[in-house]
Structure formats: structure tokens, C-alpha cells
């Protein structure tokens, strides 16, 4: 029932939607075992936007894959709506760190590919696909192939391919990393608008502290490998976030707080 605007007040009574209890993930490699995540405990409430932030290689992508049901945890319990996650849920969409577009399909074909791959007719969704593409500034590129696009444009196509599934859980792995600062800011606003149409739980992996604070209700700060969750910070800035949000005193405070945390952790040092 919680909406994105619910903020801090509701967190105390609102039950966990996605719940991670002492989650650990170890990969077996040729040179022995690699512990990507040691023991992560985290609850995400329905409708929230949560940012995962931490140094490179700390297991952010791994954590996202676990929530997606694409990897299974080595230890601990992971539940969504009280049910153990064993495979990808019906109402979930993922944007991967690499855009993973299908080279042989057009931009429009890529956006419509989820339906095609499920064996459903695409025709019902063509209109919506065009709208989404126009939303992210790709009008007129519908019939191009991915190789004709820039890195940032490709990532936007991947985002549209996720959004067209109208997921109630959206998992985003650094979706804006390949964008320039201006386009990135626009995309942050667009994603918020597109998500506001329907309550949606979003988990966003990012390297960018400002982006994490701007987009989220909760920022989860992770330590370097073997990673743990260092702190979860509730961002109680009003929604919808606008171009003026960055000027609020609370905004700068949160950014400074996270920055200080990373300095303490030795991730950033002078």
C-alpha cells in the first residue's frame, strides 16, 4: 500500500516486500572460491526505490541477480512477498549492466522482444513501445539496428525493453552509467515520471552518490569485498523529485554523509 512518497514515517509499520536475511554468495572459480557477498541483510518495502551503492566489485550486480532469481544464494534466505525466490518472477524486469541488445533486431524489435520471447503477440504493444522510445528521446530510431546507436542510446533502448513489461519490480544495474551528465539527469527525471504512473518497487545499482540520493527512498551503502551492508540511509526528501531537489539543504547533507562513509571505509582516500 505504501507509495513512493511514503518516506520515513511509514517504514516502521510497513512490512518488508523484498527481504534478504544473512544472504551470502560464493562463486567457485578455477583459483578457488570467491566470496562476493558475505552476509547481507536488507528489507525493501513495496513501492520504494532503493539504491545500492559501493565500490566496484563489491557484489552489487550479484545482489541484483539474486533478487531477480537468476542466481541462488549460497547462504541465507531471500523472499519476495514472503515467498522464497527460486526463479524470475512474472512481474519483474531487469536492466543489466551491459545493454545486451539483440544485434539482429531493430530498436523497436528489441523493445518488443520480451513478448516475442514469451510467445505472445507483439502487435498489442507496438504503440506503447513507440511511446516509450519517444519518451527517452529515441523517436525516429525505431527501425535502426543497435550498432547504429551510441552507448547511451543503447542503454535507453534496454530501459524501454524493461519498462514495456510494466513490471512491479524493476531491477536496474547502472542503467545510466553510459550517459553524459545532462542526459543522465533527464533520464533520472523520466524514470521517476514513468514509475509514478504505477507504484513500482525499484532497486537501482549505481556508482554515483548524487544519483543514489536523488532517485531513492533508501540508499544502501556496501563495503568492499567480501561485502557487507555498511548502512542503510533513509532519504526523506519530498517527492516528486524535481530539478530543484538538488538545492534542498537535506540533499547536500545526504550526499556529504555518504561521501564521509566511503572516506571512513577507505574507498576514497586523499
Amino acid at each position, binding site marked *: 500500500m505504501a507509495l513512493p512518497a511514503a518516506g520515513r514515517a511509514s517504514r516502521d509499520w510497513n512490512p518488508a516486500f523484498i527481504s534478504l536475511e544473512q544472504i551470502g554468495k560464493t562463486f567457485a572459480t578455477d583459483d578457488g572460491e570467491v566470496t562476493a557477498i558475505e552476509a547481507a541483510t536488507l528489507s525493501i518495502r513495496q513501492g520504494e526505490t532503493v539504491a545500492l551503492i559501493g565500490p566496484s566489485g563489491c557484489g552489487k550486480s550479484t545482489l541484483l*541477480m539474486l533478487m*531477480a532469481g*537468476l542466481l541462488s544464494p549460497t547462504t541465507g534466505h531471500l523472499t519476495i512477498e514472503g515467498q522464497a525466490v527460486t*526463479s*524470475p518472477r*512474472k512481474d*519483474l*524486469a*531487469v536492466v*543489466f549492466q*551491459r545493454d*545486451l541488445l*539483440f*544485434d*539482429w533486431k531493430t530498436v523497436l524489435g528489441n523493445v518488443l*522482444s*520480451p513478448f*516475442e*520471447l*514469451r*510467445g505472445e503477440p507483439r502487435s498489442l504493444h507496438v504503440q506503447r513501445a513507440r511511446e516509450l522510445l519517444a519518451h527517452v528521446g529515441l523517436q525516429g530510431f525505431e527501425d535502426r*539496428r*543497435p*550498432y547504429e546507436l551510441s552507448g547511451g542510446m543503447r542503454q535507453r533502448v534496454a530501459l524501454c525493453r524493461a519498462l514495456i*513489461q510494466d513490471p512491479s519490480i524493476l531491477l536496474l544495474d547502472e542503467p545510466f552509467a553510459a550517459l553524459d551528465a545532462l542526459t543522465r539527469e533527464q533520464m533520472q527525471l523520466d524514470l521517476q515520471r514513468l514509475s509514478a504512473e504505477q507504484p513500482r518497487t525499484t532497486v537501482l545499482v549505481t556508482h554515483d552518490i548524487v544519483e543514489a540520493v536523488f532517485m531513492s527512498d533508501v540508499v544502501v551503502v556496501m563495503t568492499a569485498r567480501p561485502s557487507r551492508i555498511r548502512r542503510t540511509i533513509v532519504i526523506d526528501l519530498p517527492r516528486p523529485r524535481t530539478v530543484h531537489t538538488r538545492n534542498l539543504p537535506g540533499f547536500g547533507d545526504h550526499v556529504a554523509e555518504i561521501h564521509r562513509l566511503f572516506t571512513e571505509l577507505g574507498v576514497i582516500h586523499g
Partner: protein
Amino acid sequence: MLWGVASMLLAIGLWALVVLTIEPPSYVLPAPWDVILRAWKDWALILSQGTSTVGEIVAGLVLSAVIAVPFGVFIVAIPVVDKLVYPILIAFNSIPKVALAPLFVVWFGYGIFPRVLITVSIAFFPVLVSTVTGLKSVDPDILRLARSMRAQSRQVFLRVRLPNALPSAFAGLKVATSLAVIGAIIGEFVASDRGWGYMLVQASGSLDTPLMFAVVICLAVVASLLFYAVDVAERSVISWHASHRQ
């Protein structure tokens, strides 16, 4: 195109130069003009014999593709077949197929069938192996993506694995094109009373080197045209692939 013509003229020029300076006997190395005159004299014979050779090459190549690609799909689609049959095929592939040609004569005589069979046995494997490799080498992240979309495995095969395999399959087809030419000629060496391969054997017997040169050049032209045709087909089918982007 211009460079192609230039390099061709250069090669012929060098050839002529060698003939003019060393002056070898014509049955060792005929001059370019000797070859042209010889071809001119018997052009009807070369042409009529050529139809049977070109027919074998094209039939062998088309059959190889038409059998090998679906067979590759079959192998990858059914894991048991993959484990059971693929090793046998790889073993069979290591046999020098030329060694089979006399055997095919024993089994099937001197008709067109054994010759096409030899061609297919040589051209078949590169298409099969490259199709199988292409079908198997899908980026694991792409498969993950498909899983996150709850894709049906049949659709993943049709819409991800198959297009993903096309560049590799075409690479195999190009190798097969050159091998089909070899196969047809070997077939005619061993099991024929016609064709350019047969003409080569005959001309060799009578030391008619200019005719041999003429036939070899015709073969090279046919092989190049065929390769070019496959290349054009490839360009139109997988224009999205890295090898064809401008």
C-alpha cells in the same frame, strides 16, 4: 574492383615476363597467349564439360548447406543427440575424404551421384561444425536476460540462438565453397568420364599443358564467382553483423 583488375594484370604480366625471359618449353609453362589460343580452339568443349563440373559444385554446396544447417540445429536442440552423435561426426570429419572417393566408385559406379556425394562429404563438415558452434556460443548474459523475461525455450532457440549462429554458419559456408570445388574435381579424377577434372587428367596424359592451364583458370573463375555469391547472400542476411558494418 579496380584493385582486383590491377592485381590480375600484374599477375599475368609477371607470368608473361617469366615466359619471355626463361623461355621454358610450352608443355612446362605455356605463355598466357598460348593458353588463350588453346582455350579459343576448344571453347565449346570446355564449356560443355564445365556445366557438369559446375553442376556438381553447386549441387554439392547446396546439399551440404541444406543438410548441415538443420542437422546442426537438431544436434544442439536435443542434448542426447549432441552427446551421442556429435563425437562420431567429429571422428568422421577427421577421415581424409579423398580416401573415400574410390570406395564411392565401388558402391555407386561412375554416375553424377558418387561425384556429388564426394563433394558433399568434403563440404558438409565445415557448415555443420560452424553451425553447431554458432548455436552454442550465445553470450550467457543474453540467456540470463531471456530467463529474466521468462522466455519460452523454443522461442529462445528460434529468436536468439538461430540468429546468433548465422554469422558463424556463413563463415562455414564460405569454407565449404572452396572445398566443394575441390570435391567436384576429385570426384571427376576418380569417378568420371566428363567434367573439368576428367579433362585435366586427359590433358595431362597428352602433355597438353595450355589446355590444363585454361581449365584451371576457368575453375578459379567459377570458384571466385561462387564465393562472391555467398558473400552477397551473407551481406543481405546478416547486414547487422560486425563484419558488414561500414
